[in-house]
């Protein structure tokens, strides 16, 4: 298991954002992380990335506890935070070089890593532009390139296709599908067709709790209409 999450809980005061979430993701799996806004998707991903400290529970990446052995865990992780934040005044090339340096690459290796990530996310045309001048789709791809730089065994992508046009969405999905066999990938999304397209498994989370964990096909069978939309609505609007 490359990702192990065990009883992860996050409370903000009296509000419980994530409530005892547990799941594992093995190599070769693409897990779609679904849920309405505010259900706790981003919070769970932040805890998995070691950015937020869980109130209780643990998460491990490649066997490294994200709190106890955070640096080792983060070395094995490619993380795209919500909204794909990047430093606005840096150029794409400077930004990726900085990330690659921090990841411990140098000289030829560094150049090759950056080139590879740029190639995968098709950023060639904007390499020398400051990030703030880029369109939303390009910004998202810069964030994605940063997550792929070190070819990590674990990818956690918070809404990787948000803000992309249909062609770009298709490319990103193709990229995820292509990387899937060697990696454990978690993507959060609002787009249910995406789950069908790339995910081998889906978890639906509502009010901080996991309400379903199954393959897309199994989920579809849970509603007479056979549509993921209907299943999603049924599961996330039911009083919890």
């Amino acid at each position, binding site marked *: 298991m490359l990702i192990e999450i065990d009883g992860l809980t996050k409370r903000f005061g009296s509000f419980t954002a994530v409530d005892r979430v547990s799941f594992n993701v093995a190599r070769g799996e693409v897990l779609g992380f679904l849920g309405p806004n505010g259900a706790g998707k981003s919070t769970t991903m*932040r805890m998995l*990335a070691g950015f*937020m400290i869980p109130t209780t529970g643990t998460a491990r990446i490649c066997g490294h506890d994200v709190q106890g052995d955070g640096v080792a865990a*983060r070395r094995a992780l490619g993380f795209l935070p919500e909204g794909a*934040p*990047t430093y606005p005044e*840096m150029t794409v090339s400077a930004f990726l070089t*900085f990330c690659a340096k921090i990841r411990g690459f140098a000289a030829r290796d560094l150049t090759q890593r950056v080139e590879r990530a740029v190639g995968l996310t098709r950023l060639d045309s904007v390499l020398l532009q400051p990030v703030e001048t880029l369109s939303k789709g390009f910004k998202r791809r810069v964030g994605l390139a940063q997550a792929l730089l070190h070819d990590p065994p674990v990818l956690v992508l918070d809404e990787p296709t948000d803000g992309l046009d249909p062609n770009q969405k298709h490319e990103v999905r193709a990229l995820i599908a292509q990387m899937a066999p060697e990696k454990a990938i978690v993507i959060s999304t609002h787009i249910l067709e995406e789950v069908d397209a790339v995910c081998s498994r889906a978890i639906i989370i509502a009010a901080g709790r996991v309400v379903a964990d199954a393959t897309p096909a199994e989920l579809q069978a849970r509603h007479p209409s056979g549509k993921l939309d209907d299943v999603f609505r049924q599961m996330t609007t039911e009083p919890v």
Partner: protein
Amino acid sequence: MRNVFIIAGHELSGYFATPVACVFIVIFLVLQGALTFNLGGFFDRGQADLNPFFTFIPWVFLLLVPAITMRLWAEERRLGTIELLLTLPITQTQAVLGKFLAAWAFCAIALVLTFPFVITVNILGNPDNGVIASGYVGALLVAGAFLSVGAAMSALTKNQVIAFVLAVAVCFVFAVASYPVVTDFLSRNTPVLAEIARRIAVIDRYQDFTRGVVSVRDLIFFATFIGFWLFLNAVLVEQRKAD
């Protein structure tokens, strides 16, 4: 250590990627020049030293250093880039140190650019360059002390204006802690605090350097002062990064 320097380099190039660096350095030099030559009476005194120059430096830093530090963490949190930075395989301490060192190096660059003062005074007279050198060391340490306060204040809030005002206020307290206004008041009410105030005053320690005295006690003071605020900075980042 490698990571600290990569972050410091990244931060430092960030200053120069925006007009921040240029504006800061120009204003610093103009202010420092105006204060030294006009208010300080550099020429009228007829003495070959940089005392007027060093007298004003802490006050100029008091105003300008918080302007550098206000964005350090507040900006990262507002843009959300803190989530990116702290999910890279680095420790929080490395990030705190890297940012501080970059800001400190930037202040050092600004100080180095005041070299025409040194040349001027050497042409006009025969100054004790040892005293000038120790004055510069003191000025750099004051900058470091104010930077460490400012960085911690920046970690406290997402709002740069609040970070700036808090940093100026806290730095001011440490600057004037040994002034009679403060100590007289304190010794009338709580003599213990007056003694403490005298000992933690940044300006008092700095004045030793401007007289050419570099003492281990003062160096330890600055190291402890900066260390304390950087520690606080790390704690605040840990506490508030995800808010």
